[in-house]
């Protein structure tokens, strides 16, 4: 879960009336330094045990404040420094709000964890904490909470504090909200001295987007192929296109497999198949699902196939995918034609038009530079992998592909593509077969040229190009640019 640093969590609490220790946030060295004595706290999202790591310092002199600020501001991922006024604490409590996921017997909701003994060593004594379960739908009042605090000193003030905490927790749909400690001061007031929050990105409302904006880590360990897939997703956002390369070296004696797994079911079947095997090494994690276009499938396949260590590609979903399998097969065929180093493939098609997908791949198999094996969905990945060693290669085939020149009929932005008409392949100006095969009526034949229908939408299925190449004369091809170098 993403974490909010203290200075941002303070804003959430403040908005719900929770009293806080006076503090000022500095993201650059201030011209006027704070008055001593202060605690300087580096604001690093997700950082815990800050005191032990030197990220919280007591500064009693102007020099200590100046040096401390300079050093903490230079820490990696530090968004700034919170200079919090030192206060005399008479008593400390610990409190946190968490989600309670419930079980077969208990409804889910929220839970307050409370310790009258402060937060020191809290991780080791979670069983002894007071747990107050509450409804998110009907949040507890101060009186409700006070009843649960029976026997604890200052319970009315504490209950008021905790009620405001729960209100903050629910108001911002947080997953964790912690104040550690809640300090009781000389005058009897209760204030939050330190705090942190965790949240789900998808739970943040537009209204609060700025408040929850957490800068990305300055450490970007993305591989070039991952960056390419990230850009593909930005160009064509519909559907999931996930790719992550393994950071491990290919172990000696294993078959290095590039994977195109479709959906959570496909991922889980693959994990169940290979998790316990030490002779198969998955070069990457992947998930292409959620109604992505054939264009996007093609682009991501090119990235997946581009992994230099790969010996073979495996493509499988659950076996009953939502993505039209003929569209997916069209993408696979295009990727195998256009890749500079195509991979031998084990391909399992299952879902709508699976028969057409199998037929397509079996029809074109002889024309490909690499071996492919297709599988019906009834053959699961655990049976497919028995064929890996038959077709995995130690020497990648090299082929050249350059798109045939033609007339750009038109281009579309979403999903991005260039449709190229080749009039020399249609000397009699007969309406090409691909026009009628377009599932949305997007392609039109006007005045002996291919045009687009402004009333219809291209879904990026690739059927037109497949039909044109297989059943026509190749009158129409589609150019799908890739946002970076792939093989």
């Amino acid at each position, binding site marked *: 879960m993403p974490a909010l640093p203290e200075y941002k969590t303070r804003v959430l609490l403040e908005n719900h009336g929770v009293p806080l220790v006076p503090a000022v946030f500095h993201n650059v060295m201030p011209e006027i330094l704070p008055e001593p004595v202060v605690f300087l706290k580096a604001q690093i999202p997700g950082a815990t045990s800050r005191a032990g790591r030197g990220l919280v310092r007591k500064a009693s002199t102007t020099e200590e404040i100046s040096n401390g600020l300079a050093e903490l501001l230079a820490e990696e991922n530090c968004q700034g420094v919170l200079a919090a006024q030192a206060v005399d604490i008479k008593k400390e409590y610990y409190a946190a709000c968490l989600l309670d996921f419930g079980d077969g017997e208990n409804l889910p909701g929220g839970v307050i964890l409370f310790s009258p003994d402060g937060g020191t060593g809290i991780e080791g004594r979670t069983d002894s904490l007071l747990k107050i379960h509450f409804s998110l739908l009907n949040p507890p009042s101060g009186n409700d909470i006070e009843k649960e605090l029976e026997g604890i000193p200052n319970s009315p003030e504490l209950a008021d504090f905790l009620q405001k905490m729960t209100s903050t927790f629910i108001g911002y749909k947080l997953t964790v909200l912690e104040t550690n400690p809640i300090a009781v001061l000389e005058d009897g007031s209760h204030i939050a001295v330190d705090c942190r929050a965790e949240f*789900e990105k*998808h*739970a943040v409302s537009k209204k609060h987007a700025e408040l929850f904006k957490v800068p990305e880590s300055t450490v970007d360990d993305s591989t070039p192929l991952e960056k390419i897939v990230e850009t593909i997703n930005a160009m064509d956002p519909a559907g999931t296109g996930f790719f992550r390369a393994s950071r491990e070296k290919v172990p000696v004696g294993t078959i290095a497999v590039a994977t195109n797994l479709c*959906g959570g*079911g496909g991922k*889980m079947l693959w994990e*169940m198949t290979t998790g316990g095997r030490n002779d198969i090494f998955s070069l990457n994690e992947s998930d292409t699902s959620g109604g992505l276009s054939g264009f996007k499938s093609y682009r991501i396949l090119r990235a997946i196939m581009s992994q230099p260590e790969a010996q073979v590609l495996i493509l499988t979903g*659950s076996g009953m995918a939502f993505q039209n399998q003929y569209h997916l097969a069209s993408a696979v065929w295009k990727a195998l034609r256009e890749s500079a180093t195509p991979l031998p493939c084990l391909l399992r098609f299952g879902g709508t038009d699976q028969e057409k997908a199998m037929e397509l791949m079996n029809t074109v198999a002889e024309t490909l530079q690499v071996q492919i094996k297709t599988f019906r969905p009834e053959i699961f990945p*655990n*049976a497919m992998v028995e064929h890996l060693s038959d077709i995995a290669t130690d020497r990648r085939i090299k082929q050249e592909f350059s798109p045939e020149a033609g007339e750009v009929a038109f281009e579309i932005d979403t999903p991005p593509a260039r449709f190229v008409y080749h009039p020399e392949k249609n000397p009699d100006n007969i309406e090409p077969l691909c026009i009628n095969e377009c599932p949305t009526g997007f392609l039109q034949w006007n005045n002996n040229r291919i045009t687009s229908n402004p009333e219809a939408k291209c879904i990026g299925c690739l059927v037109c190009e497949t039909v044109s190449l297989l059943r026509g004369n190749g009158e129409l091809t589609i150019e799908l640019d890739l946002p970076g170098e792939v093989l």
Partner: protein
Amino acid sequence: MAGILKYLCDIDTPEVLVFGITGRQGKSRSRLMRGFGTKIVAGTTPGKGGQEVDGVPVYNTASDAVSAHPEINSAVFFVPAGAIAKAAFDAMDAGIKFLVLTADGVATQDSIKIKEKAHETGAKCLGPNTVGMLDTHGYLFGLIGGKASWAKKNYLPGKVGVISRSGGLSQLLAAFHCRPYLPGPRPDGSFGPLWKEDYPGLSAVLCVGGDPVPGITLLDAARAFEADPRTRVMAIYAETGTTQENDLARAIENAEINNPVVVILGGKYTEAGVAQSHAGAMIRNENETYAAKKQALENAGVKVVDRPDSVFAATAEFLK
């Protein structure tokens, strides 16, 4: 004979309100549902009351729709995740008793509030993050099958009740029990057709969704299949994370569930704190691990298969 909703929420014939019917998803999924036989009575989209989609009247709110069509007893939601809680509350306040929440990416706090509200009102919610459900009695909610013709071809009446935490595997487990001559590993170690033309068939499939706080749980669904006289065996895709499998195992041990149960348990190699496939698969404590769940299920007498394609032979064995 009644469908599974009779035993899940006492609905004999679902009469459905479609939330978000004017959107692209809403339109296409409504066509799928109607094509399969589901009775769609009305739709709702705020601000679009008075319109029609494929002849289905559209209302601004659920209460408007229910006022005009009091026979509405169930709803399906094709609305964005951020709007799901408000829409679900609208439906439950209007007295609708069965809700199918397809949206992915629903805030966990919203899922919890929906579950609390359902408890208050007596409604049952399938999802969030579900592909829906299908009953071979002749209705479906959500997107199972993708196309009505494909759904009709693949999901055929029979004796297996399917429950799953994964959308793709819901469809797979359900459809493959309806395929004549399905090949697979047999108990004797050979590989080949598991049955002839007499496939086991399906009573219904319920996808409880992949989120950490599902409305209807594996146990709720199993209870419904236990009461359904068509169902003679249950095939379940389960995972790490949540207490659903542990709760199911307890109910089986207590003889609350007596029909045989076959489980494919995912997540054998999932590490704590990592969601391998679905958000709900994240392991939060030792009871939610693969090992703990497998032990609990096997102790309760559940057949837990190691190979995912072994589930079909296992259900067939129970049907002999």
